[in-house]
């Protein structure tokens, strides 16, 4: 199989940096967050709170750069959801992968995400992570609620939302880490996210994968 692969430069330096930086922050936030929640004792409550607050605010700021990058580079198009080939992808992971079939939607420079990934990452980047960051920010600003006119908020409800978000992210993390092993080799996708170079099988570019021509390109 490997001899048919073509190496393409799929992930730019900033993307790779952002991926791993965000991954590290999320892992730290999960660990310290669960410690603050009282699930285990690792670094101590007060250090966990301080780290969680610091990393959380750092994430919020760094995420703003990511949003900027996504829109200025046009990479947002990678997140536009589609139903085409969705069934094929689902079928592949549920059935074809066990029979050694080829992935129905090989990666392309301008289509890094298969239809399933598009949907999941859109939900993640546009909904789950912002909800988590926003609820975390409100949690962090608890003492200012009265000043912000938010004293009707319930910390219990907010904590519940934040916990639900944390569990959702953990579920994603488990699945995501597993899915990285479904490449041509166990570590192929991981290597690609480190070096930027992904080995892909030759194949035809789908129509829907072609970039939409911008109307006024500068």
């Amino acid at each position, binding site marked *: 199989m490997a001899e048919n692969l073509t190496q393409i430069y799929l992930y730019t330096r900033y993307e790779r940096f952002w991926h791993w930086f965000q991954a590290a922050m999320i892992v730290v936030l999960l660990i310290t967050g669960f410690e603050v929640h*009282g699930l285990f004792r690792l670094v101590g409550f007060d250090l966990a709170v301080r780290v969680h607050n610091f990393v959380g605010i750092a994430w919020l700021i760094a995420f703003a750069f990511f949003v900027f990058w996504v829109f200025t580079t046009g990479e947002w198009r990678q997140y536009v959801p589609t139903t085409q080939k969705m069934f094929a992808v689902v079928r592949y992971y549920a059935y074809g992968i066990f029979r050694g079939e080829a992935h129905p939607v090989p990666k392309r420079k301008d289509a890094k995400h298969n239809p399933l990934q598009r949907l999941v990452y859109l939900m993640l980047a546009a909904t789950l992570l912002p909800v988590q960051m926003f609820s975390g920010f409100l949690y962090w600003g608890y003492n200012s609620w009265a000043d912000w006119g938010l004293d009707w908020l319930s910390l219990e409800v907010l*904590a519940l939302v934040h*916990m639900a978000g944390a*569990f959702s992210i953990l579920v994603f993390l488990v699945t995501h880490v597993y899915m990285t092993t479904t490449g041509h080799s166990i570590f192929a996708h991981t290597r690609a996210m480190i070096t930027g170079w992904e080995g892909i099988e030759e194949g035809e570019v789908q129509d829907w994968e072609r970039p939409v021509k911008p109307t006024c390109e500068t």
Partner: protein
Amino acid sequence: MMPIRWMRIFCVVFVLCAGAVLAQAADEAAAESAPGRTMARQATQDVQGWTTVDHSRLDALKKPFASGKQVTEACVSCHSEAASQFHQTIHWTWLGTEPDAEKRMGKAGDSLNNFCISANNMQDKSCNACHPSWNGQGTEGEVNCLVCHGRQQINWTEAFDDLNAFSGSDDPEEQQIVADIQADIQQAVQSVILPARENCGSCHFYGGGGDGVKHGDLDSSIAQPPKSLDVHMGVDGKNFQCTRCHTTVRHNVAGRIYSRPAAADRKSLIEDDLTAKITCESCHSATPHKAGSKANDHTDRVACQSCHIPLFARQNPTKTWWDWSKAGTLQDGKKYNEKGEFGKEVYMTIKGEMKWEKDVKPEYFWFNGSMNTLTIKDFIDPEKIVAVSAPVGSREDKNARIFPFKIHGGKQPYDTVQKVLLAPMLSGKDGYWETLDWQNAIEKGMQALNASYSGSFDFVETTYAFPITHMVAPRDNVVRCAECHTGQGGRLASLTGFYMPGRDRTGWIDTLGWLAVLGALAGVALHGLGRAFSRKGGKES
């Protein structure tokens, strides 16, 4: 190509690590200069005591004294308003300032406690040992200024009794005794000071009839405390006297709490340079910790004392239980005492059963600065534990903060018909300590208070709360976050009605969350196993 790249990565990592280390070091440096600490230090620069009066050189104090009254007259001959000022204060009247025609708050009034229960309208004479009058005469007598202002404490009653017994004698030996006593009296009268810890402590350390009986954060260990026992009063530290915080206006000493708080406002000296220094915030401000510290976010709802006094009675034990119902047992027909592990009485025929504790963890309650204290006129529910004194406040009360308390439990007599607490007379020839006769002691005690008694009594379990505010521990010994922010028996486990991170959780979201995570793990495990087996099979075929 590769080495340069690795060098670059190394440099980035190095800079990040160095930054983190520097940030940590800066944090530690900032902790040294927490703004509230700096402020307090500035507000309390060491005062070089100075005065324009040397009392030992005043003629008014060089003459012979034959009675306490003459001493007071000598003081008032210069300090003309001192006695009349003092007569208006709670230290003299033992009455709260709250105008309430029905109930007179205070020891001299209708208030009760669960120690010696009542002063019986000042007629239980043993209580007067702590009244700042000569010979325990109470408000009938003259002010003994030297209780608070004398460096040398002598037994005045004995000294004047002996002096008067021997004076006028022709015996040269007895004349010498008179001269010696007079010299002692004059020396004591001439050594006038601002009140020191020992002066205040001569009563406040021994409240309830013994060292450390009442307060828990005030006992004889505070007279010369090490800094580890109290950062403010520590003799190896700032060596504060009581009056450093208990500031005084016209002999009214700040800090007494009945139904009114010790301080009406939370003000620092920056906001009002003449404010009483009775609160921590007076000198330390409302945000004393370094900027950005989570501790500063707590000061609106958690009193400083809650974290900074992790344990009280750290050197001497304090009494935590006093069961009057066990009193009256004789041994070989005689009254007896029995001592326990701290060398303190755990049983006394005249007082009943007692418990003592050391290094006590406070109990925490919402507290707006006022205490609710029962009087002989308040009805009780004897089916429940009766709170003779309890802090006022709730989470909904904006002025209330979580505050540490010593809770003293016990059993004391109540009227089974009228459902009020009773005030037995304890000392004197008709007192319980002499007669061991409850019925008679209660009748006498209630008569002294002009209160009715049905004639039928029993004992009820009660509690009495003392705010804990002294024995502030060094910074390194403060209560750690996780001692409250924990789901397993934390210090604030009993305070409900609000969500506290680390302590509280919404059970179903945790259950649901973990089910989802386990589901994901099981799913990927099965999927992975499926791949492993099918691929192997695939290759073989």
